């Protein structure tokens, strides 16, 4: 096992973690500010990928597709908030789960009606094809770009929340929503904006990841489950927690898939070791989540004390 291989796997883990962060950030923001559990977040990821693939196919440019995917997801988010989500703030979490689960079914079926049941083609932009020599390891340019995108978005999001008026309102909304409404902030518009922001982040993740994955109906749900694991580990409502949780999940999942089968190969037959190792690796992040919940029931960075 060489240094290059370990380094490449670490990069893979970080890249995977940063894409999870884009999903988890929106999810945790919506929960933190509005107290809403949004299962349909994965559908916004899917919308971003499909619109990006469709527009990139027509326009011939991935970047145009990316902007379109991001805009479409944000628009879909705003629309969903106004039509459906707005009625759910006062309800308990079970009602929210039910309603947003219905949205998953409606949006998946809707996307299938528009784009058909077969996966779409979306290719990596030409400038980011191939690999870059990093000295020790050769790494995919596109995955490096994804890492860059992830970090830039995280910084942008931090600046937005810590340094702008909108950020102040979001933070105020998190700690006391009656008070900021009383102070004359239009809380309805704020909620729509936050929801659309979360949707845009999910749509961006979908479009970015769609170029190296299969753009297909239902592609958002597996990522959604991981994003929930991330925000539970990080502390629900905390952006910082989402970042730390996402990186932990990304690196531990990747390293587990890579190292566990090898570890078992020391004591078991090769064929058995791959089977047992693969099975355990797929459980690893849930074990991590359970551990965090036992030691810190509110997650690593609880948002509300």
């Amino acid at each position, binding site marked *: *096992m*060489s240094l*290059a*291989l370990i380094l*490449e*796997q670490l990069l*893979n883990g970080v*890249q*995977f973690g940063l894409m999870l962060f884009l999903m988890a950030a929106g999810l945790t923001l919506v929960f933190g500010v509005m107290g809403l559990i949004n299962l349909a977040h994965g559908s916004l990821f899917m919308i971003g990928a499909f619109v990006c693939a469709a527009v990139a196919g027509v326009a011939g440019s991935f970047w145009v597709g990316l902007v379109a995917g991001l805009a479409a997801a944000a628009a879909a988010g705003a629309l969903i908030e106004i039509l459906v989500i707005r009625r759910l703030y006062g309800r308990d979490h079970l009602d929210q789960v039910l309603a947003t689960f219905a949205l998953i079914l409606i949006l*998946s*079926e809707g996307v*299938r009606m528009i784009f058909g*049941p*077969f*996966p*779409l*083609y979306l*290719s*990596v932009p030409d400038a980011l*094809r*191939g*690999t870059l020599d990093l000295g020790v390891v*050769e790494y*995919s*340019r*596109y*995955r490096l770009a994804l890492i860059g995108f992830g970090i830039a978005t995280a910084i942008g999001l931090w600046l937005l929340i810590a340094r702008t008026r909108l950020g102040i309102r979001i933070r105020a909304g998190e700690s006391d929503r009656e008070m900021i409404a009383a102070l004359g902030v239009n809380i309805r518009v704020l909620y729509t904006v936050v929801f659309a922001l979360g949707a845009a982040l999910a749509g961006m993740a979908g479009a970015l*990841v769609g*170029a*190296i*994955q*299969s*753009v*297909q*109906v*239902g*592609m958002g749900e*597996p*990522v959604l489950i991981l994003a929930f694991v991330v925000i539970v580990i990080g502390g629900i409502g905390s952006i910082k927690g989402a970042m730390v949780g996402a990186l932990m999940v990304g690196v531990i999942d*990747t390293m587990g*898939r*890579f190292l566990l*089968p090898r570890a078992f190969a020391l004591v078991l037959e*090769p*064929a058995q070791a*791959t*089977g047992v*190792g*693969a*099975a355990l690796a*797929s459980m690893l992040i849930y074990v991590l989540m359970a551990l965090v919940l036992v030691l810190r029931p509110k997650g690593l960075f609880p948002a509300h004390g």
Partner: protein
Amino acid sequence: MTFAGKAAAGIAALTLSMAAAQAETVTVGMITTLSGGGAGLGVDVRDGFRLALEKSGNENLHLVVEDDAQRPELAVQIAERMIQSERADILTGIIWSNLAMAVVPSTVAQGVFYISPNAGPSALAGANCHQDYFNAAWQNDMLHEAAGQTANELGYENTFIMAPNYPAGTDALTGFKRYYEGELAGELFTQVGQTDYAAEIAQIRASEADSVFIFLPGGMGISFMRQYAESGVDLPIVSAGFSFDQDVLPAMGEAALGVINTGQWSPDLDNAANRAFVEAFEAEYGRLPSIYASQGFDTANLILSAMETASVSDRDAFREALRAADFASVRGDFAFADNQHPIQSVYVREVVEVDGVLQNRIIGTAFEEHQDVHGADCQM
């Protein structure tokens, strides 16, 4: 009554009973994957089946289709409902081996035929075979055995092999290794539905492999090939046709060009039944058929051929009629082995581009009249 009179009455009675047999409606319940990442496969099986029905003009086959969303527990519920309330005579349609393992044993135990248009897990071909279970596609190992054989012929000596961790995935690796004679550079199980293969590609890069064998059907294969193409690893890939057929090729794009894969069928297979099938499918649905569509088409024709000669209410006669497999398969010669799985040829195919459309072309034959090994364990 004279002898001639008796004979005439006998013939009249026979004709009547045959007319009755033909007028009787046969209900076929199709449980298949129409949503999620595996939807392309199920849609093609369904469309192939429907096309055969339309072409036959037989209106006595009543088809009920339901989506299992690739979830075993849902497939079991649908099967129960189709048997209990739809009174289905025959079930078919399941794509995934883990779903087949959940549905098939209880279906045949309730006295309903199951005819598989796709999944062929080894357990159902061997120790758990059943007289009412037929497989009209292949036993899972078969195409992978052909891939192992092809790897030998291509001179590969150190292949890295990889498949998802579920019954068809273990069958795939076992099948490949049964014929492959070289060394293994590595062996990996991935998760079903996995979308990111960076960790696996890194291990392929670090291994000393001279080639890669994958079994990743549906969206899994698309994700892998896209990422493989961007990874800078350029080892040749050899695979079974499941991961490189018409359901995924358009989405894979040029990353799939030149990949060698094996299949019991190919759009350019030269026989009358297949030429007519490919033309009719394109005319009806506006796209090329996949290997899954060909299997759906054959499954329907198998059932229709049995309906011609026997009544489904006479189970023994209907079973014999199915065993005879008296229909023109689009894959050419087709016969059932004793375990009611196909004996058939497996071809070597290459992904090429014809008029801007990626598709497979036959470049050789891996096996002729090939039969799976599990039949030896089948006590029927």
